[in-house]
Protein backbone atom coordinates (compact mmCIF):
# COMPACT_ATOMS: atom_id res chain seq x y z
CA UNK A 1 0.00 0.00 0.00
CA UNK A 2 1.32 3.46 -0.98
CA UNK A 3 2.37 5.75 1.85
CA UNK A 4 2.26 9.50 2.25
CA UNK A 5 5.49 11.29 1.37
CA UNK A 6 6.45 13.89 4.00
CA UNK A 7 8.72 15.83 1.66
CA UNK A 8 6.03 16.18 -1.01
CA UNK A 9 3.08 16.70 1.33
CA UNK A 10 4.12 20.24 2.39
CA UNK A 11 1.56 22.51 0.58
CA UNK A 12 3.99 24.55 -1.54
CA UNK A 13 6.05 21.49 -2.49
CA UNK A 14 2.85 19.59 -3.33
CA UNK A 15 1.84 22.39 -5.74
CA UNK A 16 5.35 22.58 -7.24
CA UNK A 17 5.30 18.85 -7.96
CA UNK A 18 1.73 19.03 -9.33
CA UNK A 19 2.83 21.74 -11.81
CA UNK A 20 5.97 19.85 -12.86
CA UNK A 21 4.15 16.53 -13.27
CA UNK A 22 1.68 18.21 -15.64
CA UNK A 23 4.53 18.78 -18.13
CA UNK A 24 5.67 16.03 -20.51
CA UNK A 25 8.58 13.90 -19.29
CA UNK A 26 11.84 15.78 -19.82
CA UNK A 27 10.20 19.21 -20.19
CA UNK A 28 11.67 22.02 -18.07
CA UNK A 29 9.82 25.04 -16.69
CA UNK A 30 11.35 28.48 -16.21
CA UNK A 31 11.78 29.54 -12.54
CA UNK A 32 10.00 32.90 -13.05
CA UNK A 33 7.10 31.23 -14.85
CA UNK A 34 6.74 28.63 -12.08
CA UNK A 35 6.77 31.44 -9.48
CA UNK A 36 4.03 33.22 -11.44
CA UNK A 37 1.97 30.01 -11.72
CA UNK A 38 2.13 29.25 -8.01
CA UNK A 39 1.94 32.84 -6.74
CA UNK A 40 4.87 32.50 -4.34
CA UNK A 41 7.94 34.64 -3.65
CA UNK A 42 11.44 34.03 -5.05
CA UNK A 43 12.82 33.04 -1.65
CA UNK A 44 9.96 30.75 -0.75
CA UNK A 45 10.07 28.93 -4.09
CA UNK A 46 13.87 28.64 -3.96
CA UNK A 47 13.81 27.11 -0.47
CA UNK A 48 11.22 24.48 -1.40
CA UNK A 49 12.98 23.67 -4.67
CA UNK A 50 16.18 22.96 -2.71
CA UNK A 51 14.31 20.47 -0.50
CA UNK A 52 12.87 18.69 -3.53
CA UNK A 53 16.26 18.71 -5.26
CA UNK A 54 17.95 17.21 -2.18
CA UNK A 55 15.33 14.44 -2.20
CA UNK A 56 16.13 13.73 -5.87
CA UNK A 57 12.63 14.60 -7.04
CA UNK A 58 13.58 17.51 -9.30
CA UNK A 59 16.54 18.75 -11.33
CA UNK A 60 17.46 22.45 -11.25
CA UNK A 61 19.25 23.45 -14.45
CA UNK A 62 20.97 26.86 -14.61
CA UNK A 63 21.77 27.99 -18.14
CA UNK A 64 22.49 31.15 -20.12
CA UNK A 65 20.01 32.07 -22.86
CA UNK A 66 21.20 35.00 -24.99
CA UNK A 67 23.71 35.90 -22.25
CA UNK A 68 21.00 36.08 -19.58
CA UNK A 69 20.87 33.56 -16.73
CA UNK A 70 17.81 31.32 -16.65
CA UNK A 71 16.88 28.62 -14.15
CA UNK A 72 14.86 25.67 -15.42
CA UNK A 73 13.25 23.00 -13.27
CA UNK A 74 12.03 19.53 -14.23
CA UNK A 75 10.73 16.49 -12.36
CA UNK A 76 12.94 13.39 -12.24
CA UNK A 77 11.62 9.87 -12.83
CA UNK A 78 11.95 9.27 -9.08
CA UNK A 79 9.97 12.46 -8.41
CA UNK A 80 7.18 11.40 -10.75
CA UNK A 81 6.97 7.97 -9.10
CA UNK A 82 7.01 9.45 -5.57
CA UNK A 83 4.32 11.98 -6.50
CA UNK A 84 2.12 9.28 -8.04
CA UNK A 85 2.50 7.14 -4.90
CA UNK A 86 1.61 10.17 -2.76
CA UNK A 87 -1.57 10.72 -4.79
CA UNK A 88 -2.48 7.04 -4.44
CA UNK A 89 -2.05 7.31 -0.65
CA UNK A 90 -4.19 10.48 -0.54
CA UNK A 91 -6.91 8.81 -2.61
CA UNK A 92 -6.82 5.79 -0.37
CA UNK A 93 -7.34 7.95 2.77
CA UNK A 94 -10.09 9.92 1.05
CA UNK A 95 -11.89 6.73 -0.10
CA UNK A 96 -11.96 5.50 3.49
CA UNK A 97 -13.96 8.62 4.37
CA UNK A 98 -16.36 8.15 1.44
CA UNK A 99 -16.63 4.38 1.91
Amino acid sequence: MAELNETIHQPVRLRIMAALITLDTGDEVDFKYLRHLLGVTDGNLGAHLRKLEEAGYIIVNKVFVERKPHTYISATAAGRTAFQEHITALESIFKNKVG
Partner: protein
Amino acid sequence: MNISPTEAEESLAAIQSVTQKTRRSIANSGAYIFLIITGSVWLVGFLATQFLSGPIVAYLWIGASVLGSALSIPLGTRQARRVRSPSLSPTAQRAITFWLLLILYGIAAIAVAKPDDGKQVTMFIVLFLMLGQLSMGMLLSFSATWWALPITVLALVGYFLLPGIFYLWMGILVGGGMIILGMYIHFRW
Protein backbone atom coordinates in the same frame (compact mmCIF):
# COMPACT_ATOMS: atom_id res chain seq x y z
CA MET B 1 2.71 10.26 8.75
CA ASN B 2 -1.06 10.42 9.32
CA ILE B 3 -3.60 12.89 8.02
CA SER B 4 -7.37 13.08 8.17
CA PRO B 5 -9.60 12.26 5.16
CA THR B 6 -10.53 15.96 5.00
CA GLU B 7 -6.86 16.94 4.71
CA ALA B 8 -6.42 14.30 1.99
CA GLU B 9 -9.39 15.73 0.12
CA GLU B 10 -7.95 19.26 0.36
CA SER B 11 -4.56 18.07 -0.92
CA LEU B 12 -6.17 16.28 -3.87
CA ALA B 13 -8.19 19.42 -4.67
CA ALA B 14 -4.99 21.55 -4.53
CA ILE B 15 -3.24 19.14 -6.93
CA GLN B 16 -6.16 19.23 -9.36
CA SER B 17 -6.31 23.03 -9.21
CA VAL B 18 -2.58 23.47 -9.98
CA THR B 19 -2.71 20.85 -12.73
CA GLN B 20 -5.62 22.61 -14.46
CA LYS B 21 -4.03 26.05 -14.05
CA THR B 22 -0.72 24.83 -15.48
CA ARG B 23 -2.38 23.15 -18.49
CA ARG B 24 -4.51 26.23 -19.20
CA SER B 25 -1.63 28.66 -18.75
CA ILE B 26 0.66 26.76 -21.11
CA ALA B 27 -2.10 26.34 -23.70
CA ASN B 28 -3.02 30.04 -23.52
CA SER B 29 0.53 31.36 -23.59
CA GLY B 30 0.58 31.22 -27.39
CA ALA B 31 -3.10 32.07 -27.86
CA TYR B 32 -2.88 35.68 -26.73
CA ILE B 33 0.01 36.42 -29.10
CA PHE B 34 -1.91 34.88 -31.99
CA LEU B 35 -5.05 36.87 -31.09
CA ILE B 36 -3.32 40.25 -30.74
CA ILE B 37 -1.18 39.91 -33.87
CA THR B 38 -3.92 38.43 -36.09
CA GLY B 39 -6.43 40.97 -34.72
CA SER B 40 -4.07 43.86 -35.55
CA VAL B 41 -3.44 42.58 -39.09
CA TRP B 42 -7.19 42.14 -39.67
CA LEU B 43 -7.97 45.58 -38.22
CA VAL B 44 -5.57 47.33 -40.59
CA GLY B 45 -6.31 45.09 -43.60
CA PHE B 46 -10.10 45.09 -43.41
CA LEU B 47 -10.38 48.82 -42.68
CA ALA B 48 -8.18 49.47 -45.73
CA THR B 49 -10.40 47.16 -47.81
CA GLN B 50 -13.55 48.99 -46.64
CA PHE B 51 -12.37 52.56 -47.19
CA LEU B 52 -9.60 52.45 -49.80
CA SER B 53 -9.34 51.10 -53.32
CA GLY B 54 -6.62 50.18 -55.77
CA PRO B 55 -3.23 48.57 -55.16
CA ILE B 56 -2.73 50.39 -51.83
CA VAL B 57 -5.15 47.87 -50.22
CA ALA B 58 -2.99 44.92 -51.27
CA TYR B 59 0.16 46.73 -50.10
CA LEU B 60 -1.39 47.40 -46.67
CA TRP B 61 -2.47 43.76 -46.32
CA ILE B 62 1.01 42.54 -47.29
CA GLY B 63 2.73 45.11 -45.04
CA ALA B 64 0.55 44.26 -42.02
CA SER B 65 0.96 40.52 -42.60
CA VAL B 66 4.77 40.76 -42.93
CA LEU B 67 4.98 42.96 -39.81
CA GLY B 68 2.71 40.54 -37.91
CA SER B 69 4.83 37.55 -38.93
CA ALA B 70 8.04 39.38 -38.01
CA LEU B 71 6.63 40.27 -34.57
CA SER B 72 5.30 36.80 -33.88
CA ILE B 73 8.77 35.22 -34.19
CA PRO B 74 10.49 37.02 -31.23
CA LEU B 75 7.29 36.98 -29.14
CA GLY B 76 6.72 33.28 -29.81
CA THR B 77 10.37 32.53 -28.99
CA ARG B 78 10.01 34.40 -25.69
CA GLN B 79 6.94 32.35 -24.81
CA ALA B 80 8.71 29.14 -25.75
CA ARG B 81 11.34 29.89 -23.08
CA ARG B 82 8.76 29.32 -20.34
CA VAL B 83 8.74 25.59 -20.97
CA ARG B 84 11.66 23.89 -22.74
CA SER B 85 11.29 20.50 -24.38
CA PRO B 86 14.25 18.28 -25.28
CA SER B 87 12.55 17.48 -28.60
CA LEU B 88 9.38 18.23 -30.53
CA SER B 89 6.65 16.20 -28.84
CA PRO B 90 4.46 13.81 -30.90
CA THR B 91 1.48 16.08 -30.11
CA ALA B 92 3.28 19.12 -31.53
CA GLN B 93 4.29 17.14 -34.61
CA ARG B 94 0.67 16.09 -35.16
CA ALA B 95 -0.52 19.69 -34.67
CA ILE B 96 1.95 21.03 -37.26
CA THR B 97 0.93 18.30 -39.75
CA PHE B 98 -2.74 19.07 -39.10
CA TRP B 99 -2.28 22.81 -39.83
CA LEU B 100 -0.30 22.14 -43.01
CA LEU B 101 -3.03 19.77 -44.24
CA LEU B 102 -5.78 22.21 -43.28
CA ILE B 103 -4.08 25.00 -45.27
CA LEU B 104 -3.84 22.69 -48.30
CA TYR B 105 -7.51 21.70 -47.93
CA GLY B 106 -8.44 25.40 -47.61
CA ILE B 107 -6.58 26.29 -50.81
CA ALA B 108 -8.21 23.33 -52.57
CA ALA B 109 -11.69 24.35 -51.35
CA ILE B 110 -11.21 27.93 -52.60
CA ALA B 111 -9.89 26.65 -55.96
CA VAL B 112 -12.91 24.34 -56.39
CA ALA B 113 -15.57 26.81 -55.19
CA LYS B 114 -14.09 29.78 -57.11
CA PRO B 115 -15.53 32.48 -54.80
CA ASP B 116 -17.21 35.42 -56.57
CA ASP B 117 -15.69 38.20 -54.48
CA GLY B 118 -13.33 39.11 -51.66
CA LYS B 119 -16.02 38.65 -49.03
CA GLN B 120 -16.43 34.99 -49.89
CA VAL B 121 -12.65 34.45 -49.95
CA THR B 122 -12.47 36.15 -46.54
CA MET B 123 -15.18 33.89 -45.15
CA PHE B 124 -13.48 30.76 -46.51
CA ILE B 125 -10.22 31.76 -44.79
CA VAL B 126 -11.95 32.72 -41.52
CA LEU B 127 -13.98 29.48 -41.42
CA PHE B 128 -10.96 27.24 -42.08
CA LEU B 129 -8.80 29.17 -39.59
CA MET B 130 -11.41 28.99 -36.82
CA LEU B 131 -12.16 25.32 -37.61
CA GLY B 132 -8.45 24.64 -37.13
CA GLN B 133 -8.43 26.47 -33.78
CA LEU B 134 -11.49 24.57 -32.55
CA SER B 135 -10.03 21.24 -33.70
CA MET B 136 -6.87 22.03 -31.71
CA GLY B 137 -9.12 22.79 -28.74
CA MET B 138 -10.86 19.43 -29.05
CA LEU B 139 -7.51 17.66 -29.12
CA LEU B 140 -5.57 19.70 -26.55
CA SER B 141 -7.50 22.19 -24.45
CA PHE B 142 -10.91 23.62 -25.35
CA SER B 143 -10.46 26.39 -22.76
CA ALA B 144 -7.64 27.76 -24.93
CA THR B 145 -9.62 27.93 -28.18
CA TRP B 146 -13.25 28.60 -27.22
CA TRP B 147 -12.90 32.15 -28.58
CA ALA B 148 -12.95 30.74 -32.14
CA LEU B 149 -16.70 30.08 -31.79
CA PRO B 150 -17.84 33.71 -31.12
CA ILE B 151 -15.44 35.00 -33.79
CA THR B 152 -16.98 32.60 -36.32
CA VAL B 153 -20.50 33.70 -35.34
CA LEU B 154 -19.55 37.41 -35.61
CA ALA B 155 -18.00 36.85 -39.05
CA LEU B 156 -21.13 35.00 -40.27
CA VAL B 157 -23.40 37.75 -38.91
CA GLY B 158 -21.37 40.36 -40.80
CA TYR B 159 -21.39 38.32 -44.02
CA PHE B 160 -25.11 37.52 -44.11
CA LEU B 161 -26.71 40.49 -42.36
CA LEU B 162 -24.36 43.41 -43.00
CA PRO B 163 -22.86 42.94 -46.48
CA GLY B 164 -22.53 46.72 -47.01
CA ILE B 165 -20.16 47.17 -44.08
CA PHE B 166 -18.73 43.64 -44.00
CA TYR B 167 -15.06 44.71 -44.04
CA LEU B 168 -15.64 47.46 -41.47
CA TRP B 169 -17.39 44.85 -39.28
CA MET B 170 -14.54 42.37 -39.74
CA GLY B 171 -11.92 45.04 -38.97
CA ILE B 172 -13.42 46.72 -35.92
CA LEU B 173 -15.55 44.04 -34.30
CA VAL B 174 -13.66 40.86 -35.19
CA GLY B 175 -10.11 42.27 -35.49
CA GLY B 176 -10.57 44.66 -32.56
CA GLY B 177 -12.34 41.94 -30.58
CA MET B 178 -9.38 39.60 -31.05
CA ILE B 179 -6.98 42.29 -29.79
CA ILE B 180 -9.11 42.96 -26.68
CA LEU B 181 -9.59 39.24 -26.02
CA GLY B 182 -5.84 38.60 -26.40
CA MET B 183 -5.06 41.38 -23.91
CA TYR B 184 -7.69 40.04 -21.51
CA ILE B 185 -6.21 36.52 -21.65
CA HIS B 186 -2.71 37.91 -21.14
CA PHE B 187 -3.39 40.29 -18.26
CA ARG B 188 -6.43 38.86 -16.50
CA TRP B 189 -6.59 35.11 -17.15
